[in-house]
C-alpha cells in the first residue's frame, strides 16, 4: 500500500526502467525485490530506477538493492538511481552506496 512500482523495458536504452513510488522499508522491500528479480528473469539488463517519488528507503531496502547489484554486476549490468530526494541522497552518501549504485540527477 505504501509502495507502488511501475516498470517497462526500454528498447531504445536496452534497460529496465522502474519508477518506485512511496516507501521501501522493512515491510515493503521484499515486494520490490520480487518485482526486480522477475524483471531480471525476463531479461537480464541494467535497471534504471526513477526515484523522484521514492519517499523513503531503509537499510532493509538498501541491503536488498545491494543483492540486486551483485546479480547485475555479474552480467556487467548496472543499477542506476536517478533523482533521489535529498534525504535518500544523503543516506546513499553516508553509507558509501553512491559508489556501488550509479546515482545521478537528470
Amino acid at each position, binding site marked *: 500500500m505504501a509502495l507502488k512500482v511501475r516498470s517497462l523495458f526500454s528498447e531504445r536504452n536496452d534497460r529496465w526502467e522502474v519508477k518506485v513510488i512511496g516507501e521501501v522499508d522493512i515491510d515493503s522491500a521484499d515486494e520490490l525485490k520480487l518485482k526486480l528479480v522477475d524483471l531480471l528473469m525476463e531479461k537480464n539488463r541494467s535497471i534504471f530506477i526513477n526515484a523522484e517519488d521514492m519517499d523513503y528507503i531503509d*537499510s532493509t531496502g538498501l541491503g536488498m538493492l*545491494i543483492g540486486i547489484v551483485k546479480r547485475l554486476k555479474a552480467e556487467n549490468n548496472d543499477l542506476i538511481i536517478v533523482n533521489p530526494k535529498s534525504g535518500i541522497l544523503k543516506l546513499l552518501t*553516508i553509507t558509501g552506496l553512491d559508489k556501488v549504485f550509479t546515482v545521478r540527477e537528470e
Partner: protein
Amino acid sequence: MDFFSLTIPNKKEFVSSARLLATAIAGLSGFDVESIEDIRMAVGEACNNVVVHSQDSDKIDLEIELGEDNMRISVVDSGAGFERHLAEGIDPDKYEGSGLGLFIIDAVMDDVEIHCGDENGTTITMTKKR
C-alpha cells in the same frame, strides 16, 4: 519539556506508524526538513532492529522528550538484548546485509546510547539537536 509515548505491536507492518509519529512531532516542534528526515531514518532503523533482532518482545515502545534545544527519542524493547560491537561502517563489496542500521543511526543523530539489561531488553536513546 513535552513528553510523548507510543506503543505498537512488534510487527514489520506497523513500523511506518512509528516513523510517521516521530516525524510529525519533529515537524510540529519546528525541526528543519533535513533533521526531520534524519529522525525518520533513525526511528525506522531502531524499530527495524526490534522487529528483526528482538522477536521475544511483543511490542515496540517509542518515548519522545521534546526539549528547548533537542528531541530525544528512545526505542525500547523487552527482547534478548545484545553486546554492541562498535559500528564501523560497512564495506559494500563484502556486505552481507548486516550492520547498516546502527551505522545509519550514528551518522544521522547527534548522540546515541544503547543500554541492554540482562533480561530487560534493549533501549536505544537517540538525540537530535535543533
